[in-house]
């Protein structure tokens, strides 16, 4: 499939957008604002890294963008159409075009499902199939997707606990790519993995994004990892975006003191 044929969208229209979103948890004295009036636009083809420490609101933000959570105020949009406050059945377009990879594959893969059923779950959904060109849940498609992430076809009959950590995260990536999405949102996809496996998964993600021309939203606490995959970076702290810019700019010449502190705090190998 030619990725270029699918993006005739005018450059001014962002693919995913958040406009002044606030997300509040709890009530009364225990109220916590996970996000405070955040604006973010993800243009087609962008590779955006969202960086921040725990409690910065980075995961909340991408969950709102993916319409898996509702903002307390503000709105989220997909291709210029509102996705916040829209009932689930109105989100078919978004669901078939935006897929996610989560942090810990032990939690993101149903332990009672075989790899084959996990990977084809998005293809079996009637809602996703609204989009005409979503591949059918055939055995061929399954093999194709598994091969695409470097998994042997016979793994389709295994259960997640029979796989290694790296294989599990590959399964999660395969599930996300099965419906041929346009946007891949990866929420800390290598944080739960061993160092030895991390490099493999990052290489795989980089290859897939390049080969399929995916728009990437990559959430991480680790700027060094984000630097490798993204061209734009957003730095968050306490529910607000403190800095945003091109990767080199932010990484080499941070303007915000917090970004500078974050960069300085990353331990480097002294040798």
């Amino acid at each position, binding site marked *: 499939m030619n990725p270029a044929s699918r993006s005739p969208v005018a450059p001014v229209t962002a693919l995913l957008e958040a406009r002044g979103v606030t997300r509040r948890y709890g009530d009364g004295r225990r109220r916590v604002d996970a996000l405070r009036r955040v604006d973010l636009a993800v243009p087609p083809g962008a590779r955006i890294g969202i960086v921040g420490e725990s409690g910065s609101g980075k995961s909340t933000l991408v*969950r709102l963008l*993916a319409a*898996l959570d509702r903002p307390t105020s503000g709105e989220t949009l997909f291709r210029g159409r509102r996705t916040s406050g829209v009932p*689930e059945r109105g989100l*078919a377009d978004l*669901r*078939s075009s*935006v*897929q*996610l990879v*989560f*942090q*810990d594959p032990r*939690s*993101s*893969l*149903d*332990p*009672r*499902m075989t790899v084959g059923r996990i990977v084809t*779950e*998005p293809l079996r*959904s*009637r*809602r*996703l199939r609204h989009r005409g060109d979503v591949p059918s849940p055939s055995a061929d498609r399954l093999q194709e997707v598994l091969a695409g992430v470097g998994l042997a076809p016979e793994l389709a009959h295994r259960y997640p606990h029979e796989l290694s950590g790296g294989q599990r995260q590959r399964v*999660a990536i395969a*599930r996300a790519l099965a*419906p041929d999405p346009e946007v891949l949102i990866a929420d800390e996809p290598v944080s739960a993995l061993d160092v030895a496996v991390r490099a493999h998964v990052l290489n795989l993600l980089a290859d897939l994004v390049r080969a399929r021309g995916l728009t990437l939203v990559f959430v991480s606490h680790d700027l060094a990892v984000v630097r490798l995959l993204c061209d734009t970076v957003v730095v968050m702290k306490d529910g607000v975006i403190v800095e945003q810019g091109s990767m080199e700019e932010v990484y080499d010449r941070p303007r915000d003191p917090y970004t500078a502190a974050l960069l300085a705090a990353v331990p480097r190998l002294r040798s």
Partner: protein
Amino acid sequence: MRWINLVLGTVLVAGVILLGLVSLAWTPFDPTLVVPGERLQPPGWPHILGTDAFGIDVFSRIMAGARVVVQVGVVAVGLALLVGVPLGVAAAMSHRWLSDLIMRGADILYAFPALLLAILLAAAVGASTMTAAVAIGVASVPAFARVARAATLQVMSSDYMLAARAAGTSPLAAAVTHVLPNIAAVIWVQASASFGMAILAEAGLSYLGLATPPPAPTWGRMLRDAQNVIFSNPEQALWPGLAIAAAVLGFNLLGDGLRDQLDPRLRDIS
């Protein structure tokens, strides 16, 4: 060690069910036949466990009693399971006010013991196997609702439920494909434990004369009959008591054994 519970539990449970099933077709003697000439015989041949104060063969009566136990257990646990599990799953997956309503109802019922419910029913409409089974079943609903809700909440908090939503799976489909398979294990454990409790409750009720009416033999009534002759023949209370204990122990051990096998967290500890 970890297998002992499961094996012993399965053997005892299978024994009780087998006794009950066989008693449908055959018992050594008629379990209701009063033979005044053969009262209070010691264990031996042909009455392997002896006879009771009416001259009824004790072993035959115990076999027939097993049937009632299985009946009451199946009805009570089945009722509790069919009502409690959907309620618990719904409570976990629905809005907060509905969830609160369901669980508050369960809390009230929880404080309302099975036996009191059975006594009320017996007083209102007369005692029978069914009133006992229904009362025990209704009283067990909250336990299933709670367990199902807790397990479902755990499933709901997992990322694979989020992934399912992102994959366009509807809540109902997710409940069937993700929630039920993942909570099945704890539900079976609960069912096994509840079966044991149902047997105890049934025994208590039939001892008080608030369940299956005579002449149908039940273990509880055998104990009541034994109590009448306890000063002269205390051993009469032994066999039905052992039968109850073995059956309850069997279901409890089966439940524990299942849990040990199914809970990977416990597996790592032991």
